[in-house]
Every structure is written in C-alpha cells, then in structure tokens.
C-alpha cells in the first residue's frame, strides 16, 4: 500500500513543493475564466484556424461558397426586382389620373362648370380642364407639327378634364370611372393607370415566387453546408477522438466546424451580393430604356446596403446553424 516506503536512494526528491491541499484544484471549472477578452482571444484563434483550413483547400472551398452564393442569388434577385417594381408603383400611384373626353360641341364655359362641379366630389382630389385649343397647342409643341396644324380648318380634338382620384386603389378608380361615365357631357373615360395595375399584379406574383423559392433555397443550403461539414468531420475523426479522450465535450469538438459553416455562409452571402451587382449592372441600361417608355425616371436599386446585409446575414446564419446541427449529430456518434 505505502509506496512511500521506497528506499531513499530510489526515491527522487519530490520537486513539487506544495502539498496536496495547497495545490490549485485540478478541477475543470475552478480555473475557468469567463473574462470577455480571454473568450475573444480563444474565438479569434478558433476563427483563424478554421479560416486557414478553408484557405488550405481553395478550390473546394470556393466551389462550396460559389454554390451557396448562386443559391442565395436567385431569391435575392427576385426580391430586388420586386422591391424595384414596388418603388416604381409607389412613384406612379400619386400621379394616377383619369381623363374625361367631352362630347364635341360643349362650350369652354360649360366644360369649366363641369370641371368645377367635379371638384366638389369627395372621391376627387383635383380636376383640370384642357380646352380643345389648349390640347392642340400642346400636341403641336410635343410633336413639332405646329405649322401643319395651324393650316387645319377645324380643331379635331375634344376638350378634356384630367381628374386626380383621391383613392387610387383599382376598385375605387373603377367606381369613379362608372360614376363619371354617367355624366351627360362625357364621351369617354380613360384610366391612365391600367398598366400600373397589371404591374402591381406581376409584382405580387414575383414576391410570392421569391418567398417560396427562399424556403426551398434555405432547405437546400442546409443540405449543402451540412454535407460539407459532415465531410470535414469525417476527415478529422482522429482529432475529434483525441479531443474526446482528453475530456473535450461534443460542443468543444464542434466549435471549429461552427466557424467553418459560418465562413461558408458569410462568403456565400458576400459573393451573392457581388454577383447580384454584376447582374443588375448588366441589365440596368436595358431596364432603364424600358422604364423610359413609361416616362419613369428610373434607376435600379439593388445595391441598397440593407438588402445586401440581409443576404449576408441570412447566409451566415444558415451556415452556422447547419454546421451546429450537423456537427453535434456526427460528433456524438464518434466514440474514442
């Protein structure tokens, strides 16, 4: 029992001077430090190591990041397109107008009276009478055909009242159109914002597709990152075994992989906004031309900082979460 009975010659002088009682507790928690800067230091090191591993295999890391970026790009583009459409719609909604073409033979004075009468309606914000002469002038100026028009015997244009509806929702505008149609002086009512309503419907559809696609993409990203992390764990099985043997918890062994997943997602998100920028720049000129046809002063807004941050945040969060779920699951299964 008493090992201390060894001969003095065989027994080396104990060089550890402190007695068992005064010895710092070898306990795990006792010396655990919770200071923020220490924790930061530990995590900086973990992050550096995980980053280094990614850089060590540049091709496979890039392929993974690229796949994540492309997956994120599709819904990001749809949402960007949708938000552009919405902002276009918002710009036009205020200027939605209804034009009443009057019957021929109605005097300017009568027409003015009708126009003023319309202003008393609650559903109308403003009404402006454009007389046939005014209309001819404007038409001449706009087309450059003044001289030709002056030679015409009579003015073929009708008088018109331009009405700004108080409520620009499609239903309200429809109601107003019906009401105005019944006026005896009115020949034809034209809503200048039909195309706007179609655009609104398209925007709605794009948004819905974007939402469904996002869900599918998130699920896909989970599988991509999960599978990559699973392979990384497979490659470092021996290391995980050793860590477990010397008392590392599953979470401790999982930490480097969480950074790996986080970096994949972060890299994918950043690459996705870069790709989105390329796509938007490429299409900006043609879209501008299209919007010009609708007299819109239009500039694609895909670079909004907030949108970019959302893409990066979503990517990084998915990467980290997928890595957490996968690594805990697989590391639990590794026994020393």
């Amino acid at each position, binding site marked *: *029992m*008493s*090992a*201390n*009975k*060894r*001969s003095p010659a*065989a*027994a*080396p002088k*104990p*060089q*550890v001077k*402190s*007695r*068992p009682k005064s*010895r*710092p507790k*070898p*306990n*795990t928690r006792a*010396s*655990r*430090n919770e*200071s923020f800067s*220490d924790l930061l*230091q*530990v995590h900086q090191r973990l992050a550096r190591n995980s980053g280094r591993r990614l850089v060590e295999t540049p091709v496979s890391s890039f392929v993974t990041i690229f796949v994540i970026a492309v997956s994120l790009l599709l819904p990001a583009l749809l949402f960007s397109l949708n938000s552009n459409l919405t902002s276009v719609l918002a710009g036009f909604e205020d200027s939605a107008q209804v034009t009443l073409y009057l019957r021929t033979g109605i005097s300017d004075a009568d027409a003015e009276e009708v126009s003023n009468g319309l202003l008393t309606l609650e559903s109308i914000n403003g009404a402006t009478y454009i007389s046939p002469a005014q209309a001819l002038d404007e038409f001449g100026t706009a087309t450059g055909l003044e001289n030709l028009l002056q030679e015409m015997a009579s003015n073929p244009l009708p008088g018109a009242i331009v009405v700004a509806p108080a409520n620009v929702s499609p239903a309200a505008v429809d109601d107003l159109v019906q009401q105005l149609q019944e006026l005896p002086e009115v020949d034809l009512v034209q809503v200048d914002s039909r195309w706007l309503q179609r655009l609104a419907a398209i925007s709605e559809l794009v948004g819905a597709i974007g939402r469904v696609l996002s869900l599918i993409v998130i699920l896909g990203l989970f599988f991509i990152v999960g599978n990559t992390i699973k392979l990384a764990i497979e490659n470092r099985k*021996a*290391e995980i*075994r*050793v*860590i*477990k*043997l*010397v*008392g*590392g*918890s*599953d979470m*401790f062994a999982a930490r480097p992989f969480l950074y790996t997943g986080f970096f994949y997602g972060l890299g994918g998100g950043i690459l996705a906004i870069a790709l989105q920028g390329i796509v938007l720049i490429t299409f900006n000129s043609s879209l501008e031309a299209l919007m010009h046809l609708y007299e819109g002063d239009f500039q694609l807004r895909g670079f909004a900082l907030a949108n970019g941050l959302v893409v990066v945040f979503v990517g990084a969060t998915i990467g980290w979460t997928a890595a957490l779920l996968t690594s805990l699951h697989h590391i*639990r299964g590794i*026994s*020393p």
Partner: protein
Amino acid sequence: MIKFDNVSKRYADGQEALVDVSFEVSRGELAFITGHSGAGKSTLLKLILAMESPSSGQLIANGVNLSRISSKQIALHRRQIGTVFQDHQLLHDRSVYDNVALPLEICGYHPADAGRRVRAALDKVGLLKKEKSFPAALSGGEQQRVGIARAVVNRPRIILADEPTGNLDPALSREVMKVFEQFQGVGVCLLVASHDASLIERLNCRTLVLDSGRLIADQKPRPDS
C-alpha cells in the same frame, strides 16, 4: 480513488476481457498492472476512462460511478484523468506546444496561465526546446514524452499510463518514472500498465498481475529494498 468491485467486461463477440476483478488504488499510490498482452490491461484502463462500460460489477473512479455515467459526465470525468496512450494519440497538425495545451484549452484556462503550465510540463519530460515542432518530426520516444506532458499538464487526480516507457531507453524511462513519482508525492493516484519487468522490479511498487482477464496477484511493495 479507483475501486473495482467484481468488475467483468465481456465484449459483444463473447470475448471475456476482464473477469471478476476487484481492487482499490488510493490517493498518492502508484500501482503497476502487468500481464501478457491480451491479459486485459488495456481494457482495464479503458473502463476507468469510460471508453467502455463494465458488463457487471461496480467501478468507481474519482468518486464517479462509471457503471452509471451519462455521456455528458464522461467529458467532465476524463478531464480529471491524465492518460498516456500506448499509441500516443497526438494531433499531428498541431505543434507540440498545442498538443500539450489541449487539456487546458478544453478546461478554458487563461492563455498565459496555460503557457506556464505547458512549459513546466514540457520541461519535466525534457522537451522544452521542441515546443514548436510537430509530432511527425519527433522520434517515437519523444512523441511518447509529449503524451506524458499532456497527461500531467492539467494536474489530474488520476494518471493512467499504458506502456509509458515502451519506446524509451532506460535513462529516459527513469526520468519519466521520476515525473510520475513526483505526482504520486502530491497525492495523485497512478495506474501504469507495463510489462517492463526490470522497471517494475527496480521501482518496487504495488503490482497487479492480470492473466486472461483475471487478477491473479496483488503484490505489495517489498518492505525494504
């Protein structure tokens, strides 16, 4: 500190690795386990490390009943034990320093504090100058000593060693055993599996002899030698 009470271990293939083993090793005691290869030495150490669980009987180490240990407790339990593995079990992509620091890293030591302890442990095994080397660049004996430094760096309550002197020349074996004796002197319980008969003879410690999974002898040290 370590108490085996009629512990048996039968593997799934029916092999009886340990049969009805009972013994107790207390604080500040150094005991050798010896026997032919396949006698059950490694299984015995694996049971204490909770790498395997006993088929029957009761095993208590460091106050923890290892027959009923949850997977979460296992990690905590292993942090109290320093183990020297026969195959070293070093991480080959980390330097000697980082390998030895691993148990401290797991326990969340302050880096500066960890640095002092790692260097002290490396100094004890004579590898202070190799702290920046990688295990692959070391000889078998040096790797063995890195494993020993890692086992003692956390000042564990129990040290298990599986053939710790297997790759070492006699002079280094003596050095390593001296380190173990220092820990014994401060109350650590040590269990060393070895079939180095001359070493066991020279050190005159308690010796447990295993044969085909049975404990056939529990030799106390000679009263005076």
